[in-house]
């Protein structure tokens, strides 16, 4: 599903969170949403999911304005995973994934959980490689397992657009890489808020960079992740090199240094 964002603005209690953000996301691509804390990443994702209403501007899913769709219809097309820890959930992994079928429940009695739904849930768990923990209780799972089950739940919604808010938080390195690899492998249109620039560089087709509620850069990782832009937004000094195997950019950081050495605008300070 292609997403078009036009002049989106949003405030809370008079504080401007997002200002005139415009972007477009192509079908089937994985887009990374980057920016320092407080840049507005989570808010943008919530607006894209239709959970919040923008003050101005518009979000369109495949050229259909999100505001014109009923909530349930949006839920059938867009799945949002917030970063959360829910220790007090008393469900099994299978039951958690089954929740994702709620948007598809029958109109009359609101029933879900029939055989069709169960099949979808099973498939979703398989897609994230979590079939072995189907009957385990949620609170007994590790952070990585919980994240995978959450993604399976999102998949059970059969969305065309997947929105993930910092999915790699609390995960160890192998879990992070595995998760992002799986997301890429799904082939869905996905927008992920990430804080790790290198992960974004490695796993995203496109990057949207937010700073103070404004979109300051959009493009391929190579185009967006440049030392001058990074210095401007994050306030850190860095050096870009190419990954020996993947070819994608690798960012090497150092703190901002006042004693200036001659810098190469393309490559940064050695």
């Amino acid at each position, binding site marked *: 599903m292609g997403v078009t964002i036009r002049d989106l603005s949003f405030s809370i209690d008079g504080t401007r969170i997002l200002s005139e953000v415009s972007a477009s996301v192509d079908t089937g691509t994985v887009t990374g949403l980057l920016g320092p804390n407080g840049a507005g990443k989570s808010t943008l994702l919530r607006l894209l999911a239709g959970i919040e209403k923008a003050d101005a501007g518009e979000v369109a899913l495949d050229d259909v304005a999100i505001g014109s769709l009923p909530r349930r219809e949006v839920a059938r097309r867009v799945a949002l995973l917030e970063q959360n820890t829910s220790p007090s959930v008393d*469900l099994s992994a299978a039951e958690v994934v089954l929740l994702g079928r*709620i948007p598809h429940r029958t109109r009359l009695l609101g029933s879900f959980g029939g055989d069709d739904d169960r099949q979808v849930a099973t498939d979703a768990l398989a897609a994230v490689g979590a079939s072995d923990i189907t009957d385990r209780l949620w609170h007994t799972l590790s952070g990585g397992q919980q994240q995978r089950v959450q993604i399976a739940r999102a998949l059970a919604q059969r969305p065309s657009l997947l929105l993930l808010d910092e999915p790699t938080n609390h995960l160890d390195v192998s879990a992070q890489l595995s998760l992002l690899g799986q997301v890429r492998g799904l082939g869905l249109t996905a927008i992920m808020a990430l804080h790790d620039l290198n992960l974004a560089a490695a796993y995203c087709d496109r990057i949207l960079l937010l700073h103070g509620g404004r979109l300051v850069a959009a493009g391929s990782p190579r185009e967006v992740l440049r030392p001058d832009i990074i210095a401007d937004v994050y306030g850190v000094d860095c050096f870009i090199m190419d990954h020996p195997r993947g070819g994608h950019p690798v960012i090497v950081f150092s703190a901002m240094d006042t004693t200036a050495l001659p810098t190469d605008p393309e490559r940064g300070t050695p």
Partner: protein
Amino acid sequence: MTGRGYAIWFGAAVLALLLACAVAVTIGPAEVSLTHVVGSFAQRLGLSFGEAVPPLIDSIVWQLRLPRVLTAAFVGAGLALSGAVMQSVTRNPLADPYLLGLSSGASLGAVCVVILGVSFALPAAAFLGALLALFATLSIARVGGTITPARAVLSGLAIAQLAAAGTSFIIFWAAKGDSYREILNWLLGSVAGSTWQSVIISGTALLVVGIGIVLSATRLDAFAFGDTSAASLGINVNATRWALLGSVALLTGAMVAVSGSIGFVGLILPHVVRGLSGPGHRRLLPLVIVCGALFLVIADTLARTVFDPRELPVGIITAFIGVPVFILLIKRKRSAVWG
């Protein structure tokens, strides 16, 4: 559990409830046999069954025991259902139907009419008191139109304390002689004064509000991971929460108006039933209704027979049963909720 297993449990619970009601009508200080009970029914249907039932026995069966048993069943069902919904909406396993100040408000209303000597208006006053307390709670909890569970709980505590203080003040100021006793009975909760009017009130509330709640069982499931998850699953979080809290208030208000604030039913039953049915609300809610009814019918029968001819307020029995069950649950159930 499988769908089949659930159906069996549900059927068993319904049978147990019917049996308990039948037995409860035959139990009591007065000697009433099953033939008397059936005869009483038969008379009203215009049929005859065995010998004529003595009018006073008929009076006992039809005017005292039957309304009382039915009221106990409806009230137990309503309180258990309200408790289950409250626990889910506030995501708090210790929530009960009275959390939003409902029972304190109802008590205040009830005490006012008892002191003023217009006891016949008690159900109406209690109901009104409950609604006013709810309104006050939600008004305080409301910020910019959204109510978070935590805020609702805290506001409810504040309003409950205020109403309780008001109740105490009125008792202190105006209660003479035996009014204390009547008020205490009401505060502890009792179905002793149940009439057919109580049956109608509690039954109607259960039917009308209960059906609405059971139909939104799926929506309650969506709240498992919090508001944003529910919203992303297509639920209108705010509207759903308002509607559910309002329904609980109506249901609980009606029950409290009829029987005072009977404790522990709304708190304990959802946990017990959840252990059987699992957390999915489409299975939990119908079963908790039946089990709540069964629990209170049994508790009330005990309340009026254990110290024959004296009667205990049923709220004492529910506490005596409820607390050990609670402790048992905490000890045995090692789950996310209990830790």
